[in-house]
Each structure stands twice: as C-alpha cells, then as structure tokens.
C-alpha cells in the first residue's frame, strides 16, 4: 500500500450530504477484475453526460479542481454499497484525503486499506474548509497526519482524531495481512479452542 505522506493540495468542494458509493462509482464499472483505472469513471453520472461529454458545472470538471487531491463533502460520505471500487476510483483520480462531518463505516475502513485518509470533523469546521475549498486552486489545504492537523489557506488549524493503529499503517504503508499473519499462533490457538467448544461451526 502507498504511504500517506503529508499533503498540501487543492480541495474540491462537494457540499452534498449522503454521497453514496453508487454515485462515487456506478455499478457498470464494477465489472472489472482489476483494482486500477477506475479514476476515469469517478462520479461518472455526475461528471459526464450519456455521450461521455463532460458536464461543465461538475466540480471536478472545473479547471481549478482538475488536480484536486482533497475532497470536502457533506455528512455520511460513502454510504451504501461496500464496493471498494469507490476508494479505488478516488485514489486513481488522485484524491488522497476526504474531509466530511461523518463517514459510512465500511467506506471509512476501505479508505485506510488504500492509502486514503478520511477525516471526520465537526460540521462548523467542515463549513470553514468548504468555504476555503470554494476559493479554488489558489487555496491549498495542508494535511499533517503525524500531528493530526489540517491547516486552511488562511492559516486556521483544526486537529482531527484517527485511530492509532490505522494511522501507523497509513503512515508506513503497511499491509494488514502481513501484520495479522505475525499473530498466526494466536489464531491457531483460538481456532483449536473454538472447534472444541463449537464443533458444529
């Protein structure tokens, strides 16, 4: 997994609540057996018309946001389907951090497996960042994962919470499976005990 290094980037504002994973990557793009290449269809039905032409109003089609690396969005981002194609598409587009008042559970976890940092902040702070993002390409937002802080283009600083283990994995680009396999002895012990106690499982 790619490490999450500190980030200073353009933030795209998406002031919409309940952005679901069907919006992020519609189902017709799930028919792939690969993880790559999904960025071209990120937010496909909002971003392109049926002929494949860009819809100019959509935020990621606007010149100042084409290189966005941060997304600022409304409550309950990533709700719905568990499809990991959603974070794959976000990452493939070039976005490494999503900021919102809250995230759906499965999407939130999926982000950390793919080198994306999801940051949940109180609504008032997201409102400030949304305004900052609306300034366009000149307003770069800084994300400091190690110190768990976000700095607006005006120098205002917000701190955020992140699980210590998830942070450690993200900062070091660690593979979960490798870490878990280091605890194989614990799993063996558990499995032996459980199959004695609950042999029908």
């Amino acid at each position, binding site marked *: 997994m790619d490490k999450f290094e500190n980030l200073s980037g353009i933030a795209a504002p998406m002031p919409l609540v309940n952005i679901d994973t069907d919006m992020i990557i519609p189902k017709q793009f799930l028919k792939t057996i690969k993880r790559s290449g999904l960025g071209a269809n990120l937010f496909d039905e909002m971003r392109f018309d049926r002929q494949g032409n860009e819809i100019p109003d959509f935020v990621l089609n606007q010149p100042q946001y084409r290189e966005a690396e941060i997304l600022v969005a409304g409550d309950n981002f990533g709700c719905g389907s568990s499809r990991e194609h959603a974070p794959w598409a976000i990452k493939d587009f070039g976005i490494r951090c999503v900021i919102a008042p*809250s995230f759906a559970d499965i999407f939130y976890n999926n982000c950390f497996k793919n080198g994306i940092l999801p940051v949940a902040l109180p609504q008032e702070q997201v409102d400030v960042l949304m305004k900052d993002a609306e300034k366009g390409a000149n307003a770069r937002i800084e994300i400091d994962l190690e110190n768990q802080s976000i700095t607006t283009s005006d120098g205002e600083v917000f701190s955020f919470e992140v699980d210590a283990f998830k942070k450690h994995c993200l900062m070091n680009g660690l593979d979960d499976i490798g870490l878990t396999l280091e605890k194989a002895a614990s799993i063996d012990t558990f499995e032996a005990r459980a199959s004695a106690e609950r042999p029908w499982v």
Partner: protein
Amino acid sequence: MSPKTLYDKIWDAHLAHEAEDGTSLLYIDRHLVHEVTSPQAFEGLRMAGRTVRAPDKTIAVPDHNVPTTLDRANAATMTEDSRIQVEALDKNAKDFGIHYYPVNDVRQGIVHIVGPEQGWTLPGMTVVCGDSHTATHGAFGALAHGIGTSEVEHVLATQTLIQKKSKNMKVEITGKLRPGVTAKDITLSVIGVTGTAGGTGYVIEYCGEAIRDLSMEGRMTVCNMAIEGGARAGLIAPDETTYEYVKGRPHAPKGAQWETALAWWKTLYSDDDAHWDEVITIAGEDIAPVVTWGTSPEDVLPITANVPSADDFEGGKVGAAQRSLDYMGLTPGTPLTDIEIDTVFIGSCTNGRIEDLRAAAEILKGKKIKEGLRAMIVPGSGLVRAQAEEEGLADIFKEAGFEWRLAGCSMCLAMNPDQLSEGERCASTSNRNFEGRQGYKGRTHLVSPGMAAAAAITGKLTDVREMM
C-alpha cells in the same frame, strides 16, 4: 460477571487477539463470497503465494451479474465483462477449494438468501461478505456485516478481521403491527427515525414484541436494511422461531451436536441490565405501510402522506431534499398515492424470499397488472423459485402479467440487463433508492412486496390496505 449485550457475547466468543489499544482480531465463522467484490482478493492471494485458510468455512455463489431470463444458460445473454467475472469466480472456487453454487445449480441465488437457506448461517456466528447487505444474517443472532475487497482478502488469508468494537444500540418495536404492515415497513420506519447515518458506529439489536412476532424471513428483512441506517450490523436474539427455521437444513448441526449447539444458542441474549449506548423505542401500532419519496432510504413517509417540500427539512438536508425532488420529478404537496409508476420489481435480498412472494401473490390473485406496466418477480434463489411454482404462486404472477424470472440480484442494483431507463419510475421491494441505482436516471420508490403488488394493479403507488 458484568452484564452483556448479545453483541458483547458474540464478540467475546470470537476474539482471537486483542491489542492494548483495543484493535482486535475477530475470528470469522462464515465467509460468503460473490463474483463482483472477490476477484481482486483472490488475485492478491495468488500474487502473495497465499492460500485460503479455511476453505470449509468459505461459500461462494454468483448473483450480482447473472441474467435472470430463462435463456441464461446461453452464455451470450451475459455481457463479456460480466461473463469474465462469473468465470473468474468459477475458477477461484475450484482453485482454492471453497464451497460453490454455480449458476446452473438449483441452489444458486442471492448470497444472503442462499446462506440461511442452506443452513450455513447459524446463531452466534460471525459472518462476513464483500457486500453491505450481509447484515441480513443478523436475523439469526449472528454478527454479520459487509466488508471491502481488501478485507475479503484478509479473511481469505487469515480467517480473521481487524476490528474495533462498536457501540450498542437497542431498537425496540413494542406491541403488535397493524394489518398490512410488514417487516419492510418496520425497517424503513426505523431508518426514517434514525436517518441513514444514525446507526454509524453502532451494532443495532432489534427487539420487542413486534420483532418477536416476525418469522425468520421477516427478521431477515429487518436486519438486511440495518446498513441503510449506517449500522455495522443488526441483530435479533435467537429463539424458538430461529431454531425451528434452522433445524434440518443441509449444513445445520445434527444429532448430539444439535443439542450442544442449542444449549449454547440459548445463552445468546442481552442480559437485563446490559448497558446500551443508545435506545430507540417505536410503537408497532404507530407504523404504517410506508414508501420512499426521495433518493435516500431515510426519505420515508406513510403511503397516506404527501410529497414533502425542501423547506420541511433543516441543514444539509434542505439541498439534498431539493436535489431528490428534482431527480425524482416530484412536486411538493402531491399525494403519494397520485404518483404513477412504469415498473414494478419484486425481489432482492431484502424481499426475495418465499413469504415475500406469498404476500405479493395474495394481492395479485385473480387480478391483472395495469396495462402497459412492466412487472417482474425475481425469486431470491432457485429453491425459492421451485417452492413458488409448487405452491402455485408462479401461475398467479404469470396470469397477472408479471415476468417470472430466475434467481439473482437483478434490478436491485441493475448490474445485469434488468435496468430502468432514463426517467422510468419503479415501485421496488429492494433496499436502495439512490440516484442511478436501478439504472441511469431511474426513479425508485422502496416498498414492501404487498405494496409493490398493489401498485402493479393500479399503476400508482397504492395503500395495500385498500386491497386486503
């Protein structure tokens, strides 16, 4: 010992490792797999030279992509990319030696219908699948939730999941339901109260007389949509109804093992003085047959209500409601029962079981669907389909004018050819009314099977109670 909730008990029974910060390895008893969210996980195993740790606990079935038309044995009915995904699952199941129900097996169907039907899902288990509607299995008192593909790979390789414990929420539905009110109305009404983010960070246990009175199939409908309320999982404590359903199924324990299992299952309930982080109580008699008007499952109203206006909401929901109204092509103040529909879809892991089909048949018996309407019934599994044919339900559907399909996810997420066209309006027994979910610019109203059947007859959203 300190009092525990049902969730606490299942959690404790599956804890393989716990770090000081609470990061835990939860052992997984059943891993369900389908063709859309698994190919990258199997590929990851191959690349790393890893195997499936517990193939006997891993069960796969193709469901999302498969056509539901009667000619699907002909591979040409599938698009090439769909066919590649299904073939990848065929190969992965064979290569890694996991249990498998291929497309041509009568037991094939939607993974969340097949698991319980075959007795794979049992009380007190941990169940995961790369699919958010894994919550369904919580109806058995199993801790069941959806995971992403990286986690699918993690479970395949280690039979565990890295987790932190969620909070406990109790949702109590007291008393009796009124006639015409179903499990679907309960679960949608709960989301109407909590909102789609209200359950985030929680495992919900549903309880109360109205829940106890539900059949296993009704309970599966309730738990299925726990995810639409944002919860990690939904649970219902097992009882006689559960044991009765499970007994005799192909993979349920038998003989002496059944007795041992039963003795443990009977300890699976929340202690009287257990701690709840949140409690929600709804009177069963206050729940009406409901319908969604917008593009989020929280946009729920009784069928007797009118389309709301964006001004009825606050905060970020004002803009979202306006966007929903525009997308759905609805005018505030319109009675919901005036909304004309083009299509009816009965099926999905929410409402594709035999009792759902019986409820629809009861309304449709001897009736015809509105002329020009498109209507399809997609049973949740090949066995549900066979049962419906044996009971004569299939004849009722066909005589009414419904298409009678083979099993699959179908128009719930429209990954196969069953899709809405632009602007097409559908009364659907599925679980999500998101923009584009059932097809590009398609418009979805979520309802119970009886309400869907009633709408098929009148061609409008209809109060099922008027047809009973």
